[in-house]
């Protein structure tokens, strides 16, 4: 029963993608199928997490080929947790985009490829999380990346094509590096099965180990936007449609982080590169946050905070302890939810004010108080204000870091606290300019002119061209805010799940025993 769920969680969005493609230009059935598929996926993810947390991890051998030979799908606690959060976020973003599509007159000119591509993206995300071997992980990455290429250039306007070119080329480079590392792992170990790789990698000479380790880290580091490899992100995300940016920001980088966690815990649990990773985490945090404080565009500010907060997750992973991994896992969950919510709120701001440039908009607190609240709560959470989930995540991270106790650890704690202040500064700046500042204070105030036109003295209501925010968009954003608050309220159980997930990842022995029970004999490399 549970084994079937592991396959279905991939198959349902894939089949739904085919179905929505067939439905072509009939927008309404497309929307229903897409939403239904994601609701089913969400339900299955909940069942998987409950089942896995209670009954232990699930290994599915595709086509009943035994483990090292066939393809294995593995859902342990980490995978199940990631599946649940990502399907939740994907559903919320889908509802948001349905709302937006309805409002933009989607029925007349439907972008018939949006829903199929979105469902393919979902499939890719699911494949990446259940993959039990490196090549399957690569295939999952490619599925979601190809879908993301289409989504980021959706509509094909000049700005999107320009941003898309950067994004596509950088992603291709990371994929090629990943493929080359898979080739080298196969050459060195004669397998791509994660468990078998973990089992055999210890026998390699240390220099070969480090080479493979660094290649995998670079490939995933580009995807996760870790500091020296992060410059593509703020350049490419902002021009995409708001819901697309939200889904990308929430999920795609975290899949890179997920892959890094797998590499660091299952394949290379040895601590050789941990200090280097900690320094990278430090640089990612600081550089990202410094980028955020000087931007004028809300979405770019959020993109830079996204980069900077990847640093926190890398820090947790780099510690190489159970506490560190647990904190990183909780932080990933928190960050997926909160960052997506912020991007959705930015989408609402764009719709209310007609722009996301905070130098040009103002007075949103008065004109759109709901949007203001929906922005304010996740912003506080991201900035790490107690009692929100960002605070709990950072506290866990700092505690785990302090347990390490050397000078670098304390530097990182200081930097982490400083960066969360910088994040708060950047977001408060948004708050002050876009929300708090009276609309009249905006230089070259166009909104006031617009409003004067709208409130035309002929007594009628605003003309039809004014774009009102559809209730569905607000509702899905509000839903995400509620989920974000729930992360705080239910932090105890969630953190203990993360803790148990991290205990499974303490060294590679649990994973090996799971996939290859009772075997230690190698089949002999070719």
């Amino acid at each position, binding site marked *: 029963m549970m084994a079937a769920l592991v396959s279905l969680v991939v198959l349902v969005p894939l089949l739904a993608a085919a179905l929505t493609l067939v439905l072509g230009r009939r927008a309404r059935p497309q929307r229903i199928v897409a939403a239904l598929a994601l609701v089913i996926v969400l339900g299955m993810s909940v069942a998987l997490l409950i089942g896995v947390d209670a009954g232990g991890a699930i290994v599915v051998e595709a086509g009943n080929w035994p483990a090292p030979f066939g393809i294995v799908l593995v859902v342990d606690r980490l995978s199940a947790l990631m599946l649940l959060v990502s399907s939740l976020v994907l559903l919320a973003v889908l509802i948001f985009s349905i709302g937006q599509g309805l409002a933009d007159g989607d029925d007349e000119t*439907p972008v018939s490829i949006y829903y199929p591509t979105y469902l393919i993206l979902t499939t890719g995300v699911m494949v990446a999380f259940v993959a039990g071997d490196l090549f399957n992980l690569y295939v999952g990455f490619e599925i979601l990346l190809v879908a993301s290429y289409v989504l980021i250039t959706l509509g094909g306007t*000049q*700005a999107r094509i320009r941003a898309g070119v950067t994004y596509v080329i950088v992603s291709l480079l990371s*994929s090629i590096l990943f*493929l080359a590392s898979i080739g080298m792992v196969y050459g060195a170990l004669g397998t791509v099965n994660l468990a078998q790789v973990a089992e055999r990698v210890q026998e390699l000479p240390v220099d070969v180990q480090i080479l493979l380790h660094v290649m995998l880290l670079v490939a995933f580091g580009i995807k996760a936007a870790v500091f020296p490899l992060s410059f593509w992100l703020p350049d490419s995300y902002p021009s995409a449609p708001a819901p697309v940016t939200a889904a990308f920001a929430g999920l795609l980088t975290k899949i890179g982080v997920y892959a890094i966690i797998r590499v660091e815990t299952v394949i290379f649990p040895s601590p050789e590169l941990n200090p280097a990773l900690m320094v990278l985490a430090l640089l990612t945090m600081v550089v990202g946050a410094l980028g955020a404080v000087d931007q004028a*565009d809300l979405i770019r500010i959020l993109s830079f905070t996204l980069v900077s907060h990847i640093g926190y997750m890398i820090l947790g992973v780099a510690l190489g302890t159970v506490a560190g991994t647990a904190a990183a896992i909780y932080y990933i969950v928190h960050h997926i939810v909160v960052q997506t919510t912020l991007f959705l709120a930015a989408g609402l701001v764009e719709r209310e004010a007609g722009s996301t440039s905070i130098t040009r908009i103002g007075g949103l607190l008065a004109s759109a108080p709901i949007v203001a609240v929906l922005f304010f709560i996740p912003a506080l959470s991201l900035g790490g204000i107690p009692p929100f989930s960002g605070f709990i995540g950072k506290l866990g991270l700092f505690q785990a870091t302090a347990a390490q106790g050397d000078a670098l650890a304390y530097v990182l704690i200081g930097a982490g606290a400083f960066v969360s202040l910088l994040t708060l500064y950047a977001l408060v700046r948004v708050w002050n300019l876009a929300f708090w500042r009276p609309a009249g204070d905006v230089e070259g105030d166009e909104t006031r002119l617009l409003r004067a036109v709208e409130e035309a003295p002929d007594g009628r209501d605003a003309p039809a061209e004014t774009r009102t925010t559809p209730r569905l968009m607000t509702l899905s954003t509000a839903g995400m805010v509620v989920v974000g608050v729930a992360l705080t309220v239910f932090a105890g159980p969630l953190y203990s799940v993360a803790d148990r997930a991290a205990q499974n990842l303490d060294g590679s022995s649990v994973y090996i025993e799971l996939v290859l029970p009772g075997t230690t004999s190698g089949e002999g490399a*070719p």
Partner: protein
Amino acid sequence: MTVSLVLVVVMAALIACGVYLLLERSLTRVVLGFLLIGNGVNLLILIMGGPSGFAPIYDESLDPSAYNDPLPQALILTAIVITFAVSAFLLALIYRSWRLANADDVSDDADDVALREGALTMPIEEVSPDEGDTDFPVEVSR
């Protein structure tokens, strides 16, 4: 593990040329570079499969070690399909970029340029979010 030196040299040449082309600004060259690197990496996987041997179809008279390792070839097939699809998409992207801007290069980010020049308020194209048109705009006058 013995490998064919020719294959290694070809792989190195493909990857070297590919990296050189990828560093160019012209998008067409970037695509060519991507194709070269992709093929180079496919060769790498092939090389990692070990020495050449018989087709891995079961034959009683053959020693198991005489077979070629089929797994890397399966991986390469998958990688070729993916590379094919992505390069098709890239070509479409370049064509679109050419139609829109008459430009075949990787351009700098407008916001980055604005920041570098010290202007905080940068020009933003007033494009309504999510206009769903996939039609080509009015043909750029040549």
